Each structure stands twice: as structure tokens, then as C-alpha cells.
């Protein structure tokens, strides 16, 4: 069980232009990629959408972590390819769907890696999302790496009692995760209760009018990013509606060995 997938969503503070971008501008950019990826099924378009992210990853100086999260998502990507291909889609289409998934995962991974949960919370607050909601969301994000650490400790503790996670048939392996899941859930609950006590003791919910100490302000570069995203989005919609995109002529499909084909 690789916990490295969590690394791909863990925020680390770095002085790059991407990190310092206002979270609302960044989110707009991410949504732009999201919508574009869902819009197109054409493989060339999806390749472009994926490649567009690479310079952003470079600017954010998070190559290694991004690559790690891509590697971790490989299993799911292969699954998606298989699901499409085995049920009758062409090679090209299956590849396109896989690429769509990878683009989506990459875009969100980038977002969470470069945005501090605190800033996220502030952005939600300033967007007038009810405080309880925005706080719940950011605390959940904030707790992901903590829980990952807990999970590792639980795995260590149970392995030290002779538990072998890589042995046994399929059923045995699933059952072997019970000694991991239960302590993890119990730890999470205890942690939440302790956190709740601390929050209550510091007046959580005392007043409906919160004035956060730190205020997010959109700078020129942030507005620029938003403007560029809107423009590119408009371009994408135009291309989708009016520009017929070429498709590679590789009519490979799954041989008809299954009854549903």
C-alpha cells in the first residue's frame, strides 16, 4: 500500500509564482483545465490539454512530487484504459479517456500542491461560503498528511506484531487490512474529538462576524491569469463547436472474444 499518492496532494510552501498566486485565480485556472478536459474526447486536444500543464509544473518547482502522484495514479489509469478497451472502444478512444483522467488528476494535484489549505479557507470565506463549511473543508485537507503519518505508524505497529501484508491469497490480504483500518479510524475519531475540544475552547462559533486577520487580495497577475483562462476557455469552446479535429486512423479494437462485444 503506497502512501505516496498523498504526497501529490500535500502542500509545501515554496516561493514560486504559482504558489504565490491568489487561490481564486489558481482555482479558475484549474477549473479551466477541468472543463476543457471534460469537453473534448479528441486525443489530439487532450494531449494539448495535458501538455499545457507541464510548464506550470515546472514553474511551481514540484516536478518530483507531481511525478510521484502521477506514478501513484498509474494503476487507476490502466484500469480506465482496460475498462474502455475491453468493452469495445477503439485503442485511440481508450487512450483518450485515460489521458483525460490523467489530466484531471494532474490539474487537481497541482492545485493542492501549490495552495495552502489556510488560503483555500480564506478564499472560501471571502466568497461568502458559510464559515463552518469552509473550515470543515480546509481542516480535512490539512489533516490528510497527518492521517497518512498515522496510517504509517499503524502499519509499522502491526508489522511489529508479525502482520505480513504482502503474503497470502486475495481474501487473506483484504482481511489483513482490518488491523490497519480500525486503529486508523479510531485514531482519526480521537484526534477529531481533541481538535473539537480545542476549537470550542477558543470560541468557535461565538460570533457570526469573523474578520480574518489576513485578507486575500487579487493582484494584477492574478487578474491576468483569470483573463487568459477565460480567453483560452472561449477558444476551446469555439474549437469544440466549429473546428473539426483530425483523429488518427488506427481502428484497433478488442478482438471479439467476449460475449458483450
Amino acid at each position, binding site marked *: 500500500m503506497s502512501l505516496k499518492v498523498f504526497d501529490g496532494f500535500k502542500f509545501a510552501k515554496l516561493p514560486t509564482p504559482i504558489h504565490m498566486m491568489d487561490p481564486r485565480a489558481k482555482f479558475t485556472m484549474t477549473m479551466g483545465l477541468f472543463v476543457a478536459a471534460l469537453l473534448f474526447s479528441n486525443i489530439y486536444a487532450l494531449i494539448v490539454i495535458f501538455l499545457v500543464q507541464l510548464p506550470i509544473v515546472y514553474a511551481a518547482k514540484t516536478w518530483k512530487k507531481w511525478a510521484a502522484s502521477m506514478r501513484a495514479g498509474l494503476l487507476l489509469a490502466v484500469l480506465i484504459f482496460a475498462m474502455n478497451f475491453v468493452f469495445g472502444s477503439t485503442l485511440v478512444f481508450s487512450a483518450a479517456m485515460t489521458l483525460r483522467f490523467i489530466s484531471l488528476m494532474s490539474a487537481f494535484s497541482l492545485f493542492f500542491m501549490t495552495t495552502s489549505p489556510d488560503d483555500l479557507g480564506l478564499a472560501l470565506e471571502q466568497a461568502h461560503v458559510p464559515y463552518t463549511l469552509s473550515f470543515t473543508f480546509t481542516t480535512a485537507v490539512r489533516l490528510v498528511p497527518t492521517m497518512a503519518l498515522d496510517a504509517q505508524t499503524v502499519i509499522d505497529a502491526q508489522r511489529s506484531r508479525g502482520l505480513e501484508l504482502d503474503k497470502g491469497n486475495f481474501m487473506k490480504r483484504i482481511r489483513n487490512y482490518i488491523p490497519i483500518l480500525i486503529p486508523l479510524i479510531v485514531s482519526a475519531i480521537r484526534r477529531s474529538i481533541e481538535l473539537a475540544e480545542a476549537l470550542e475552547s477558543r*470560541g468557535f462559533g461565538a*460570533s457570526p462576524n469573523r474578520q480574518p486577520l489576513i485578507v486575500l487580495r487579487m493582484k494584477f497577475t492574478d487578474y491576468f491569469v483569470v483573463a487568459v483562462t477565460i480567453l483560452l476557455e472561449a477558444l476551446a469552446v469555439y474549437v469544440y463547436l466549429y473546428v473539426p479535429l483530425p483523429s488518427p486512423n488506427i481502428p484497433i479494437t478488442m478482438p471479439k472474444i467476449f460475449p458483450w462485444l
Partner: protein
Amino acid sequence: MSIIGASNLTFTYAGAPRSSVEDVSLEVSPGEFVVLTGPSGCGKTTVCRCLNGLIPNFYSGDFTGELVVDGMNVKEHTTAELSSHVGLVFQNPENQLFSLSIERDVAFGPENLGLSREETRRRVDWALEVTGITDLKDRPPYELSGGQQQRAAIAAVLAMQPKIIVLDEPTSFLDPKSALEILEVISDLNKKLGITIILVEHRLDLASKHANRVIVMDSGKIVLDGPPKQVYGEQARLIGIGVPRVITLFNLLQKGGLEFSQTPTTVKEAAQELRKMLSR
């Protein structure tokens, strides 16, 4: 005029077979430094939770008797309302700090109170200074040592400007040097700012030198209450609390026939007494 007044306070957690706190009555004057101790399960944590209103607001159960804190009856106020009068610092600093910068964690309390940005800024800067961590304000909690984290937790509570601060075993997870330092910080809060301190501790050898009063609980009841010198006697030992070792030493020497003018509770006092004896 007491700042904390409890009379016949009894509380049983919902579904529990026995009460956790039974018939507790006590008065604390403003500016006192009280150490609350006792064997595991004696009810000290329950008392802490009652003092800031977590009981009966967060933890339901059977609450009888009266508890008035800084003029407010805990049964008639929410924890949020009490939070600017009584602060509570917990054992594990990890689960009290949840932001990604110390500054934001410390600002959390004042923000909750709906204070203006300027007032919050003022309180945050002040709290960070008092606890000596101004230079750490932009760092995330997980980069700090246990001692620094606990200082931040205290600053976070201090920013609410309570008159009373209750601390539940704050040195548990700290190394010896940090434990000593945090107790100095807490002592300063009491001596320099006049904040009433209720400190729950097992490590009485560290805590006693700052306290002017020690309350010992056992099985939900208060069994001893007085200045440290008075409390650390045979009964305390029988209950099973960690009486400071210098006291155990002096009791041994006294049993052996030596006489001292007073039983010391701190290393300094003990050294003085022994010096007198050895120079005769």
C-alpha cells in the same frame, strides 16, 4: 471575591456507572497559582472541562451543584461565551494547532470573537511576545519542537485575554528542558500578568516551586487542599501522588532523627536547609 466558586459540584458522564467528580466545593481567588493533582481517574480532567464549560455543553451528563467562573454560571453560558474568561490548554500540542502558520492559529480565537482586524493584530502580536515566539509566527506548527508548539498553544489561548488559564498536563509530551521552560512561561503569566492559573500536573517536582496552593483529588473528591508544604505529607504519599523527591528525602532523614526548621519543597530550599545542617 473568588474568581472560581464551586459548591457541591457533581458530574456523571452520560452512560457512566459512577460520577467522575463528586461533591466538589472550592474557592479560588484571583491571581492564585493552583496545582491540581491526583492519581489517574481522580477527576482532574473532568474539573478542567467544567471550568471552561465543555461540561455540560460539549459533554453531556448529569450535572448537579453550582460552578461560577469569573462571575458566570457555567450552566447558563456556552463554551464560546466562557472562552474569553477561561482558557484551556490541552496535553497534546499537535491537536490544538491546526493552521499552517502559528500566527493564524493564534488569531483564530480573537477572530472567532468577531473582533476587528486591528484588535486581532494587536492581541496576536502581544500573545506571541509574551510567550517568546514572535520569530516563529510564520512557521507551520509541525516544524516546531514540542516545547515551541506548547508555547504557541498557550499564545492561542492568551490571545482571548482570559482571566483564568487552565492547563491539563501541558508537560506530558515535552522533554525535560522544555518542560522547565514552559512552566517558567506559565509562572510569568501568573506573576507578571496576574492571570489565575489552574495547572494539572503529575510532575510535582517541577510544578511545586511556582504554586502557592496544591489540591489533591482522589476518586472524584478533593482530599487535600493547601500550600505545598502542608499537602505533601504521609496522606499524599498514601494516595499515590508523585511527591517531590526532596520531600521524600527529608522525610527519610527526619525519620532517622535529624531535625530541620522546615520541610522544603524545592531544590533551593532543600539545599539551604542541608547547608545549615551540614555547617553546624
